[in-house]
């Protein structure tokens, strides 16, 4: 019997699922049931390709991922030292740091500052020690049937980070998901769960990096529950190599009067899709979402951000910006839903793209779906090159053309990066932005 490549790839997942039976036996029953349910969903639905590709995947084709086979690494493919981490991500001094290499916990480079009244630990450990609590939250926010990638993550995740607190957390938590160089493509399923209790304050930084230049696949899920009056600040850095694939899901659920601030920074990955699916679950909650994506070469980055205003008096602000070079393509899909009864909602979203090359493509779809009448909602989108008038303005003041472009691009990016409250992180991202754009460097040299 001949098999389509897709069927063969699905079989590969079945093999992997069966191979992990023994490991699963050690897990609590509810988790085994959850994984089974998620895998059933994946087998039934598969990837959103061909006839299953719907409106949400209009601009992104995940066939390269659906047709490939990825190996689940049994052990970390490399060892890292503290210096390596500092060289890669030089901003986490004084923070808690949890590192995973190829999905495996790396204690030698991790340091968890365990505060009182709080729990910052590996998810695997939390499942063993705090079973009923984790059971109450895991997969409650990111439903396994959200899509294929969440289903796969739920089926296969091995470890990750668990944070629970009901007080302000003194130090930010930096979670590093590393993929090392392998001869064949590997896959990791990082899972992060944050539960911020009443009036808690948490700062979370997630960094996704690869050590090599070969293709691999990362399928992360991050769930964040915000209790009444809590504050969560979330930085998500995608710095993987430009041959890798990443399909992720971030799911913050905002309780009454809580505040969720996120900055998404994307400079890596060859084919990426990130669903940031915010739920305003309690009245008076505020979501402030910012994103900066830098694409070059043949990168294809797709950000789908949805904000579901289920309760009244909610406020959301979304500012995403992109700088596109070469033949790259950036997709932005934003949806603001205002459910019936969610009156006094105040929502605004904006996507701006700067195109540096005449072969780059920016696709933007900022949509509004509104079912309540007492609301204030708006959106905006722009796309274009660096304005000639602005360059002329600077040149007429004696600044050369390249420096002028560099200044303008930097100014464009700074509207997002200025929101980064951690000084060392902001400096790192500014430098990284400069490096990501070769034209930028030419400007620096001049």
């Amino acid at each position, binding site marked *: 019997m001949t098999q389509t490549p897709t069927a063969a790839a699905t079989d590969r997942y079945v093999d992997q699922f069966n191979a992990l039976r023994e490991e699963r036996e050690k897990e609590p029953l509810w988790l085994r049931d959850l994984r089974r349910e998620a895998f059933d969903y994946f087998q039934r639905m598969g990837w959103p390709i061909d006839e299953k590709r719907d*409106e949400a995947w209009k601009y992104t084709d995940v066939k390269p991922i659906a047709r490939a086979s990825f190996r689940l690494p049994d052990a970390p493919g490399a060892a890292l030292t503290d210096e390596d981490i500092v060289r890669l991500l030089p901003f986490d001094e004084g923070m808690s740091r949890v590192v995973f290499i190829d999905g495996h916990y790396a204690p030698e480079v991790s340091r968890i500052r365990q505060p009182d009244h709080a729990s910052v630990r590996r998810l695997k450990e939390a499942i063993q020690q705090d079973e009923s609590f984790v059971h109450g939250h895991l997969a409650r926010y990111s439903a396994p049937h959200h899509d294929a990638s969440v289903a796969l993550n739920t089926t296969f995740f091995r470890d990750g980070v668990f944070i629970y607190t009901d007080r302000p957390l003194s130090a930010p938590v930096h979670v590093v998901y590393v993929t090392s160089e392998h001869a064949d493509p590997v896959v990791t399923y990082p899972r992060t769960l944050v539960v911020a209790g009443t009036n808690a304050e948490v700062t979370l930084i997630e960094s996704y990096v690869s050590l090599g230049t070969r293709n691999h696949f990362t399928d992360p899920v991050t769930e964040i529950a915000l209790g009444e009056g809590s504050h969560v600040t979330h930085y998500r850095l995608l710095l993987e190599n430009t041959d890798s694939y990443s399909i992720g899901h971030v799911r913050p659920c905002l309780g009454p009067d809580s505040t969720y601030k996120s900055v998404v920074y994307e400079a890596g990955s060859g084919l990426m899709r990130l669903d940031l699916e915010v739920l305003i679950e309690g009245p008076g909650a505020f979501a402030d979402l910012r994103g900066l994506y830098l694409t070059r070469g043949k990168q294809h980055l797709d950000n789908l951000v949805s904000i579901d205003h289920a309760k009244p008096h909610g406020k959301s602000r979304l500012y995403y910006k992109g700088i596109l070079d070469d033949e790259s393509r950036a997709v932005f899909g934003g949806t603001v839903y205002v459910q*019936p*009864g969610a*009156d006094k909602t105040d929502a605004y979203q904006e996507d701006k*793209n700067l*195109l*540096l*090359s*005449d*072969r*780059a*493509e*920016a*696709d*933007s*779809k*900022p*949509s*509004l*779906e*509104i*079912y*309540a*009448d*007492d*609301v*204030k*909602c*708006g*959106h*905006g*989108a*722009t*796309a*274009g*090159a660096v304005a000639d008038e602005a360059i002329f303005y600077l040149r007429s003041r004696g600044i050369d053309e390249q420096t002028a472009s560099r200044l303008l691009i930097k100014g464009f990016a700074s509207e997002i990066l200025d929101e980064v409250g951690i000084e060392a992180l902001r400096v790192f991202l500014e430098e990284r932005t400069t490096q990501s754009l070769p034209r930028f460097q030419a400007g620096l040299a001049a």
Partner: protein
Amino acid sequence: MAAPKVISRTSTQEELASDYKWGFVTDIEADIPPKGLNEDVVRLISAKKGEPEWMTEWRLKAYRYWISEDYREPRWSKVSFPPIDYQDIHYYSAPVKKEKGPESLDEVDPELVAAFNKLGIPLAEQKALTGVAVDAVFDSVSVATTYQKQLEDLGIIFGPISEAIQKHPELVKKYLGSVVPYSDNFYATLNSAVFSDGTFAYVPPGVRCPVELMTYFRMNSEGTGQFERTLIIADKGSYVSYLEGCTAPMRKTHQLHAAVVELIALDDAEIKYSTLQNWYPGDKDGKGGVYNFVTKRGKAAGKNSKISWTQVETGSAITWKYPSCILQGDNSVGEFYSVALCNNHQQADTGTKMIHMGKNTRSTIIAKGISAGQGQNTYRGLVKIMPTAQGARNFTRCDSLLIGSKCGAHTVPYIEVRNPTAHMEHEATTSKVSDDQLFYLMQRGIKEEDAQYMIINGFCKGVFQELPFEFAMEASQLLKVSLEGTVG
């Protein structure tokens, strides 16, 4: 000069209070083949119109494409309705002529004339009263065309498309399907196979059409879908403004309306196309009403050409319509001005597509959506900048107004940019009638209801002012009638 009077719908309060004042059925014997669609019906339609072989073949090609497997209605739009039984529709109906056919206006079936008079088209007095030539489509066959002489003198061809197929096959052959190919979408393909009649207009080079061309569509026979086909060609350096106004009688069952409109503007030509759509929207519980699934597209093919769409959509149970512009010529311009209103159980998924291909092409989109009752109003629009569209510009503004807490307003813009020199601006807002504005007007002694209308009218002003004057008056009146009982 007498003020041009197009459709006198200056209504009394009693008339405004009635549910749907244009819902009446004219009793005219209709010449109707059995329900359903097959190759024979397509051949019959073609034969009835005495069409040449190539036209019959074109229809059959579309029909065969339409029945091909996996060819379905588009499903991405935000509207819901029970499946349509395409075999339960009459595909052709023409008013039976009692004599040989009218030779002058006086000989037109008196019942038809009465029907038009009820609609407010004073056919008999047109020459004196109006500056408009009317090609009245009663169901599917054009019964009377006026102003033909004056237009002929200028070389303008304006009349039923069935006539143009006979008299100007070279023009029809060249342009029919050139903007909306027969394989474009499910409804357009169906239209290509079975279109009954419609309007054809050709304006020769350098001619500025002195009157606003106008067609008045009206669906009549119960259970008859109407499939008009409109083709307008503006040759080099010409200008034409075209108006389309619609009402339909009240019906119990849904009626399908799948029209296709194609516009072609050559070098330096301009076409202005205005629509006032007021078909039966169904009753307060969402029963009945017209399904308006229409494909409208203009090609600004020549340099410096311009295509402008203006629409006021207050009727129909479901509207699925995206008047679009393909901006092919360098420096060509596309415009879209729209007011869409959804009351009771109406659903609308409407917007535009601006495809920028030529250099320095410009497009403007102004869309105003009003939702009331349990209406669901969606703006869906695409702005696509191709790599060749150096220096292209787009400005989009879509605003939604919500009246009541059970309705929905949605905005789904698609912006695809493949040229860095393009400048795109998109803005959208959604809000209700502001309490501050209401208070301001009311404290000056204006009744709440009147104040609401004033604000809603002001909300739509940017679009209404694009309409020809008398149309604008009517549009504002229509808005008021359609919103009756929802404000105040």
